[in-house]
């Protein structure tokens, strides 16, 4: 597949070269692509998108951790509600944070340590009962992070009165309090490490401005596409049954217990779109869209690839906006709506993963497994 992409690239650039001969303008697309200000893109993305996302998530996790400490000291309904609110804010912010799994985030495996779902209720309960857990065991990935807190804060009882009892009168109340405190501490430790490391990594990131597999553009695009596939597959596709011959698996949605799955998916696709556009609170800076335009990238039918990607982002977002929380219920009552959202998301995958990468000469380095 990787060689195929190369081949497609060679073919595409040759084609573009031939095309450009028709115009008096002698600039060919390869030359145009190579003259693109990649350093400018990396500067914009790191300063205005990545670092602000990390610090905003860090703040949200610090608030969550503080709310849990306050709740544990004297659990009551008001403090439970505060914990739940801070949790939702942190989960929402995570959606804009998960796409940068390279450099500092990759070295602490931030993504899987933060957001492995569906949570394993059995493993969580075993850890609570044991009064201890080893955060570095991969077997504990599904028993920690935001999904475990999702269960512990929203799923341990039918309503908040019942949930509160799990932290006050239940036989394991003290151990459960210890466990949620340990989980939020681990979240905080991980993001602190990443934020600290980015202070020096930023210069490294900006200076690696080539297009090879180790370059920042290469890593950024790989992780953008990878994260997008997580959204498509695990937030929508798998629960909607696309990998289980149509049998819906609604309990596998992200944020199953706090019931904010659709809200999170929308925030997630918007974050990926913003990264693609280079868009942030300071405005629309250099992004992959500009890079594709400069490379004169076309879809197979000859139309602008960037225009098609932007239109498909809009189409996929519109489909997600027709869904409603709780997504698990939506899947049960109207599975077709969810699978049709998946179909729109899948169309964008092809554009990002195949067309964009081949136009820019970027190799996708994560593999589809061989099915053994």
């Amino acid at each position, binding site marked *: 597949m990787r060689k195929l992409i190369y081949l497609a690239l060679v073919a595409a650039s040759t084609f573009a070269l031939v095309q450009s001969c028709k115009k008096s303008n002698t600039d060919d697309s390869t030359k145009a692509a190579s003259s693109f200000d990649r350093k400018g893109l990396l500067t914009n993305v790191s300063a205005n998108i990545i670092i602000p996302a990390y610090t905003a998530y860090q703040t949200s996790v610090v608030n969550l951790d503080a709310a849990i400490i306050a709740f544990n000291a004297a659990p009551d309904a008001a403090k439970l509600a505060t914990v739940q609110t801070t949790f939702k804010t942190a989960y929402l912010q995570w959606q804009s944070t998960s796409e940068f799994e390279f450099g500092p985030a990759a070295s602490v495996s931030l993504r899987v340590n933060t957001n492995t779902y569906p949570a394993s209720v059995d493993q969580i309960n075993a850890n609570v009962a044991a009064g201890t857990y080893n955060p570095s065991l991969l*077997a504990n990935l599904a028993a920690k992070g935001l999904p475990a807190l999702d269960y512990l804060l929203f799923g341990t009882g039918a309503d908040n009165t019942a949930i509160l009892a799990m932290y006050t009168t239940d036989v394991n109340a003290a151990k459960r309090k210890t466990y949620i405190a340990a989980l939020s501490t681990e979240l905080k430790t991980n993001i602190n490490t990443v934020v600290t490391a980015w202070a020096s990594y930023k210069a490294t990131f900006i200076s690696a401005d080539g297009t090879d597999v180790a370059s920042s553009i290469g890593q950024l695009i790989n992780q953008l596409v990878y994260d997008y596939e997580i959204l498509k597959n695990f937030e929508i596709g798998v629960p909607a049954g696309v990998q289980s011959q149509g049998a819906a698996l609604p309990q596998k949605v992200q944020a199953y217990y706090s019931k904010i799955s659709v809200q999170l998916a929308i925030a997630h696709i918007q974050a990926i779109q913003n990264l693609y556009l280079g868009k942030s609170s300071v405005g629309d800076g250099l992004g992959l869209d500009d890079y594709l335009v400069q490379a004169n990238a076309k879809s197979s039918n000859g139309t602008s690839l960037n225009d098609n990607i932007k239109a498909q982002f809009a189409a996929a977002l519109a489909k997600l906006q027709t869904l409603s929380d709780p997504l698990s219920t939506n899947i049960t009552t109207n599975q077709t709506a969810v699978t049709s959202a998946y179909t729109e998301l899948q169309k964008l995958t092809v554009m990002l993963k195949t067309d964009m990468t081949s136009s820019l000469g970027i190799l996708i380095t994560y*593999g589809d497994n061989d099915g053994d």
Partner: protein
Amino acid sequence: MKKTLCALSFAAAVLVITAGCKKNNDTTEPTFNYDVPATYNFSNANFADATTRLGMATEIGNLTKLATSGPIDGPKIKAMLTNTGAPFTTAVYNTSGIQLNDQFAPAFKTDVLKFIDSLVAVSATGKVASRNVAGVGSATANAATKYALTGLGLNYAQVINKGLMGGFVTYQEATIMGNIASYDNNTVVNGSTAMEHAWDMAFGYWGVPIDFPTNKTGVKFWGSYTSQVDAGYHANTILMNAFLKGRAAISAKDTKTVAAQVAIILDAFDKLGAAGALQEVQEAKADISDNIVRNSRMSEMYGFVYGIKYNPKRTLTDAQHTNLLSLFPANLYDLTLTQLNALRDAVAAPYGFDAVKDLL
């Protein structure tokens, strides 16, 4: 398809070899002038027995996969090893008069029986796999994807499969290549010399079509894995080139070129064990949060790493190999990311794969 581009440049590079055209001193270097073809289409090539044995090994693999749906027939699998009692679905294998077992590395002959026993036991528990419980587990993302794991998380179907690659194929490559000079290259029997035929068998065991890597139809065992690791280690071209050049050189009695290709092939099969293991690290990471899938991937890695010991031409010392195995946790359910990365680094370093360890 993956390698089309490489295949083209490779074809272009394969030209007439003219050795010793230049007289540099008084010693008379023999002069050779022969064509190296672009595909393994030597008119007298014959590796049918190798193809048959790979087919037998594939049937064993197919039978081991049934361990996810109930008790499997251990005696039958063992009978397949020795081709006893017409055990194969493909009838011609049964009457071929050849077997797998006598081609195995000595240590693998006994190991494989234990592996089979372990898999048979797991297949019979009727339990759902979990930590310390042998049975069948499903992938989180797809319940239809199942693996039979021991209580320690080992998927013996994979250990057997990767064991066959190490204890049978690599062992054969290393043995044939290591002894190639001792084969007769003058007397023609059934159209080819003993040396030509031995070389053909080595090519056949690789498990690729004669116009590989342009064509990848029906690749088996290492033939499949050389493509899977090709992004980081270009074994497809390295091996195809060497097999073609060496075979042409044998027919032309160009012993010096033959020896050079032997060295390349031995080196490649030594490295492939590590490359395969590193590829599984990537696959384990792709399913890192799924205990069942991850354990199965780690079992593949374990099979590759364990299988290195069957290669009589391995560069790794016994102590290094023992050390590598010791880096696996006693129970795969207890794996940490730190351990996985340490395993990756330890496998990559002795083979010079540091720079590509995350690409394979």
